[in-house]
């Protein structure tokens, strides 16, 4: 099944007359930055999931909220679909354009409107980069906690759309835990505020509903995020293991000891070697697994916890334990992990990054399952893992120039996600469904559940003009996907119960 929008199963798209729409937009918004020539559209034909490309009908780059509002009103009148895009770093094709739709790029709405140290919040436009918020808050000893690996480039609007995570989620939460308020423009061009400057607001929690809704319910034009006081001190312990199962057990033991680390990351041997070769972080290349455990907070508490974690790691069978001796070494330990994806990119012509989550106790089973699948498909898999919160990032190594390898990688990826669902996990922890995992949604949710999602969508976007074809599959698609998965008259995982 093609990943690009397939009108036969993803729903018909309206036919929009490009030149008339173009005229209308320029007439109402003479100053609007607008791209429509083929060569200008090319840079926008994909997001971070670059294997899939479609040229949009038009690209608009508004610089004010008023412009966004007018664009939405015009597109609504025209019945033109709108795909929102921030920095375009998303890994699931959530901002993949459609041929019949306008690509609404919010990157130029990039102003930090307010840093309020007394209220511990920052009010920013959606195109502001994640890291820029922490940088602007740093003079006040504050920061914005969620830190996706792409934080130097990704925009906060995209973070809201995807409910982005990072390496510090277990302790500090995802985007949804760190928002106070968003302003949105509805599909009809209305201005709506969700959440408030207080810790809660009256009515349904629409702020939670919108977070992670992948541009399907409205366009985010302003975000108020919570800021946290920067921990006084952060220490990182690196533990090596000769067996990945032992490393997984150690994670459970740390938590059983009553400690919630700021970050708790695991890498397998293939990922360790790739990262070490690239970053020279000082990783032990012969280890089967390493754990990076960061403890942060008040200095004396961190010292106390480091002692406890060290002894837990020793008792869990770590072959070596090393504490970053200074800030430079701590940064280096993290640099290896944060650059694991590009590092793997150096050892393989292409790689495909997955984003499944599992209950941690299933780690050994799932890794064994991935190994079996990897052999079956003849493609190597490197494993990087937000161990604390059960979010796996298996990286499938392949060569797109070899005929059929991309399809094989996709099929293997799909199998890995289905395995995650089977053990009680999810097909996506932080990258989102987008277009990439649209089929696997059918394995995580049944038709009735998917219909509820469509009902939610219909409450905000009855004509399905916002990001059509993403996030929630049509029942038609699930039926096709189901057929594809029935082998010898049997459903996959016939023993499957819901978790």
């Amino acid at each position, binding site marked *: 099944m093609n990943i690009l929008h397939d009108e036969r199963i993803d729903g018909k798209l309206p036919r929009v007359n490009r030149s008339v729409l173009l005229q209308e937009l320029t007439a109402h918004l003479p100053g609007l930055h607008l791209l429509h020539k083929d060569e200008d559209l090319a840079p926008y034909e994909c997001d971070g999931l670059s294997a899939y490309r479609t040229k949009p009908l038009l690209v608009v780059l508004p610089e004010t909220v008023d412009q966004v509002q007018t664009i939405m009103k015009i597109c609504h009148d025209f019945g033109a679909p709108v795909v929102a895009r921030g920095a375009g770093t998303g890994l699931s094709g959530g901002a993949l354009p459609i041929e019949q739709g306008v690509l609404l790029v919010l990157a130029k709405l990039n102003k930090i409107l307010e840093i309020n140290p007394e209220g511990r919040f920052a009010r920013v436009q959606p195109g502001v980069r994640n890291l820029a918020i922490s940088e602007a808050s740093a003079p006040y000893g504050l920061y914005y906690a969620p830190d996706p690996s792409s934080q130097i480039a990704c925009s906060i609007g995209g973070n809201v759309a995807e409910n982005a995570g990072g390496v510090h989620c277990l302790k500090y939460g995802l985007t949804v835990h760190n928002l106070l308020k968003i302003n949105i423009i509805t599909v009809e061009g209305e201005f709506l505020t969700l959440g408030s400057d207080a810790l809660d607001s009256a009515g349904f*929690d629409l702020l939670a509903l919108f977070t992670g809704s992948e541009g399907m319910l409205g366009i985010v034009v302003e975000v108020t995020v919570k800021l946290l006081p920067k921990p006084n001190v952060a220490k990182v312990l690196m533990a090596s293991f000769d067996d990945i199962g032992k490393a997984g057990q150690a994670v459970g033991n740390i938590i059983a000891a*009553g400690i919630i680390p700021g970050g708790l990351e695991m890498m397998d041997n293939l990922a360790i070697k790739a990262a070490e070769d690239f970053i020279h972080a000082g990783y032990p290349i012969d280890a089967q697994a390493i754990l990076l455990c960061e403890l942060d907070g008040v200095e004396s508490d961190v010292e106390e916890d480091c002692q406890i974690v060290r002894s837990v790691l020793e008792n869990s069978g770590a072959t070596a334990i090393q504490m970053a001796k200074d800030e430079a070494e701590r940064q280096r330990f993290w640099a290896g992990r944060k650059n694991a994806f590009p590092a793997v990119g150096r050892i393989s012509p292409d790689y495909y990054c997955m984003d499944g989550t599992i209950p941690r106790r299933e780690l050994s089973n799932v890794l064994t399952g991935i190994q079996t699948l990897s052999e079956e498909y003849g493609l190597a898999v490197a494993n990087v893992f937000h161990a604390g919160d059960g979010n796996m990032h298996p990286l499938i190594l392949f060569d797109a120039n070899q005929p059929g390898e991309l399809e094989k990688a996709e099929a293997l990826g799909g199998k890995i996600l289905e395995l995650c669902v089977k053990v009680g996990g999810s097909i996506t922890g932080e990258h989102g469904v987008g277009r990439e995992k649209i089929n696997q949604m059918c394995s995580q949710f049944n038709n009735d559940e998917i219909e509820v999602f469509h009902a939610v969508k219909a409450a*905000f976007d009855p004509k399905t003009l916002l990001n059509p074809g993403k996030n929630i599959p049509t029942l038609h698609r699930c039926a096709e996907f189901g057929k594809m998965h029935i082998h010898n008259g049997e459903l996959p995982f016939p023993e499957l119960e819901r*978790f």
Partner: protein
Amino acid sequence: MTLAPSHTAHDSPYRPGDRPTTTSEALLLEQVHQAMAEKKPLSIQGGNTKSFLGRPVEAPVICTKSHSGIVSYDPTELVVTVRAGTLLSELETILDEKGQMLAFEPPHFGEQATVGGMVATGLAGPRRPWSGSVRDFVLGTKVITGQGKLLRFGGEVMKNVAGYDVSRLMVGSYGCLGLITEVSMKVLPKPKHQQHLSLKLPQRDALAYLEKWGQASLPLTAACFFNDTLYLRLEGGDSSVKTFANQLNGSEIDPNFWVSLKEQQLPFFKDSGLLWRCSVPSQSPVLDLPGEQILDWGGAQRWLKTSQSPEAIRTAVAKLGGHATSFTPGITTTPFHPLPNLLMRYHQRLKAKLDPSQLFNPGRMYSDY
């Protein structure tokens, strides 16, 4: 009664629809189906401890209390899955035995308080500004929908961004979007050390201190002010708690103070008067309204006893960027802060889509849905 297969047919070619897992769940589903057939609404009730909140619902009661018990609890996963009718006190005891807790300290308002009611009302206690609220800890729910289907959203994993976050939407929706039968939540280890202190000082100084402390990494997890006294709870490692306590030089107080505060057992709450909950930005000045006030959540939640009109209270609170909820039944027909027209329209649309026949708790939140 048969538990399987349920009416939710195997309509997905790929995976089966959900079935009730217990007789009590099957009974709830059956009651919902019967109400649907008779075209009659239902008033959802757990332990009946929080029914004084919101607007009265004129409908037969569907009671979740018999659907109780812990479905699964793995302390090292930091996740517990509980049936809606489970007593909140029972859940807290079980977590306590493993050195864990519901970090948001939900108020019970009575011995019979259930987990379902906790989720439906979304109320949180003194630790809320530091730990997060109920919605921040809900990972998944099993819900009987307005279409009479038993469905699951979210799950038992910490991170899950597949589909819309229907589970968190359920939190604080007062049963208006569906009947919660089961909930999975993140739990946390209990703090290693605690100290409970009070300091005598005027409110202006208290607010200034709270603002300053909020910007520093300190082991503070509760802050409340009234009667010229600032009550503080320090939690964390032994030495950080001691260091901060020494710096504060306050008087030690009974740790149960925090329970009395969240359960509204302090004399302030027991004495007569019309009670309002005002949720405001924490740095807001003292509310410019006559009557008595307790400042909780480090300033972000103000309990107000006043005879002022709902309109006057709401105008004052909205000016600060907040909202006000009546905690005394019968004094207003809009106990929840009125919503702007456009926002109300989207609430109505959402309700109409998820509960098209107005089956669950019609009018509980607003007369509009």
